């Protein structure tokens, strides 16, 4: 089997408060192969953004990556690289786009300038004229109308959708092997969302970029993902191929999520919800994070970490109940 492009092993992100260490992300392991789209799904506060920032080593102080974490990209151990070496990877081999394009772009510089900066940072041989040409070409490719004129525009002069296209161009200009997209469509109108997702799909195929797609929207997952990982309370709950997850999920949390999607054809029915609230990091059950809200929780769930249960064909669930079922069958 070919080596995966990105391999995360036992990643932890914690914040030291007083004399405790509160885990935001705990014992997380993931794998992305070259050219694959992995969706990381979960509600707000489950730690998915932190996971993304950890890969880029941009975790904001006072949070930090826990010792014992390992992230390997293309064979290189990211967490052991020196700061200049890591900087060289950002924007070049691994890129990231963020949720709110308005605040994510520098308001006092032109958008074209901000994109060519990426080229200037990573490839000194490219002349300014050449960099400008490449940027405009990529603008065109990302669907920005009148790309040459838009090069000299400022962020506030562009619509949300256009700004996000600029962000995508900025992230892909050096043709990175991995793109991390943190909620790329959440801040956009629904119609624009569809366009951006379409764009990402095309570009992904054309450049053969792997994408780590962070989202809370299962609709987005359905549009883009090859595989899906569901996060809850800082840990992975279930991981599977897209179709498997959407049709034959086994973890009670995933099932709850899927059940809570309103159906157009189910009229006059109450919306199903998962009772309770997401646990605050550091509080709540430390065995299985979902124990207090789970309809089928039993003895070991509160205090014992659920084991990884292999369900075949890349499908894995972390759940005591599922483990019991599998052992019984």
């Amino acid at each position, binding site marked *: 089997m070919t080596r995966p492009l990105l391999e995360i092993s036992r990643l932890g992100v914690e914040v030291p408060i007083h004399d405790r260490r509160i885990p935001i992300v705990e014992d997380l392991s993931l794998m992305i192969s070259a050219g694959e789209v992995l969706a990381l799904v979960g509600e707000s506060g489950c730690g998915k953004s932190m996971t993304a920032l950890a890969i880029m080593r941009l975790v904001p102080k006072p949070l930090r990556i826990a010792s014992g974490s390992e992230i390997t990209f293309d064979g290189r151990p990211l967490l052991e690289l020196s700061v200049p070496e890591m900087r060289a990877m950002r924007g070049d081999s691994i890129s990231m786009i963020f949720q709110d394009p308005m605040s994510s772009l520098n308001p*006092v510089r032109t958008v074209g300038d901000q994109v060519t900066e990426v080229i200037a940072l990573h490839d000194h041989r490219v002349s300014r004229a050449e960099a400008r040409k490449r940027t405009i070409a990529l603008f065109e490719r990302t669907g920005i109308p009148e790309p040459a004129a838009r090069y000299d525009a400022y962020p*506030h002069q562009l619509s949300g959708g256009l700004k996000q296209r600029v962000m995508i161009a900025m992230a892909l200009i050096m043709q990175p092997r991995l793109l991390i997209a943190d909620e790329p469509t959440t801040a956009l109108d629904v119609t624009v969302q569809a366009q951006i997702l379409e764009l990402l799909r095309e570009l992904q195929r054309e450049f053969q970029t792997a994408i780590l797609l962070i989202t809370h929207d299962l609709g987005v997952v359905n549009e883009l993902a090859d595989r899906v990982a569901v996060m809850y309370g800082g840990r992975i709950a279930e991981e599977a191929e897209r179709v498997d997850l959407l049709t034959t999920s086994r973890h009670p949390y995933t099932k709850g999520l899927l059940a809570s999607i309103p159906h157009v054809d189910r009229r006059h029915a109450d919306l199903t919800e998962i009772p309770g609230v997401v646990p605050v990091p550091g509080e709540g059950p430390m065995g299985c994070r979902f124990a207090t809200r789970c309809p089928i929780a039993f003895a070991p769930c509160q205090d014992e970490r659920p084991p990884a249960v292999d369900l075949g064909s890349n499908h894995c669930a972390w759940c005591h109940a599922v483990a019991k079922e599998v052992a019984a069958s």
Partner: protein
Amino acid sequence: MLAYLVRRISYGALTVLGVLFLLFILFFAITNPDDIARKALGEKAGPDVIAQWKTNHGYDRPLLFNNRTGVSGLAHLTDTLLFEHYRRMLTFDFGRSDADDAPIAQRILEGAGPSLSLTVPLFVLGLIVGVTLALFVAFFRETYIDWIVLVGCMLAMSVAILLYIIGGQYLIGMQLKWFPISGYDPNPAVVARFLALPVLVGVVSGFGADTRFYRTVFVEETGKDYVRTARAKGCGEIRVMVRHVLRNALIPILTNIVMAIPFLFTGALLLESFFGIPGLGSLTVEAIQGNDFSTLRTMVYIGALAFIIGQILTDISYTVADPRIRLS
């Protein structure tokens, strides 16, 4: 853009008229011209001498409305203190000092040179020190260096400027004898020696508050999303500071600079007076100590004018610095 300029300048002109009105109330309505005359001529001066003095200095007209015999038509309004006050101030016809009859405009022209030779280096140096120190500290935020500098600024801010002046004169002028305690010689070869101490005192007394403010601006900008994007692109911390944060931080810093402009006029008041620099500040202090209302009135007017012009300039500079304003 042009419409904005016109509106802005008109509002400035309106403000000038308002300031003149305020000055009129202060110096003519509340103060009694007879008292001013007596202060200049002495308590024992007779009523004729006082009346003559008042006529010479333009205090002999009624305040707002003139209905004396022989006055008709428009002169009812124009032959009044109010009108004269406006007319003269707006045409820069400043008249003579109440204390010694010298022409005020002349004194102002003579004093402008020495004043500027003090305030301009002070302003530029203070700005450079403040911004550089703040950038440095923002880069090292949340470390010991940050803490030490902040504490230093806090201590520096809490000392009254009077104490800096006295202390500076005592320590550096008297004890160390590096620079003269006071005095001024416009000869370009030696003028720097006389300006060194006042400029030093001025910078030291002001850098504390400035640095803290600039630092806050820089640190706030550093926390913004576009800085995160810049890092995700591969920018190093220094590049982030200089090519991204600085430009954005300039905008609030510009406001602070404009607020410094009137200080250049009055803070220099103390420095000039203590260090014997014959500029506009000394002129004002002499006017205060000599109860010279007409000079004081003029100096206040000029100070206000300088401030209003400075504000207009700053508003215009915003449109240059911030593309969001320029292009909307």
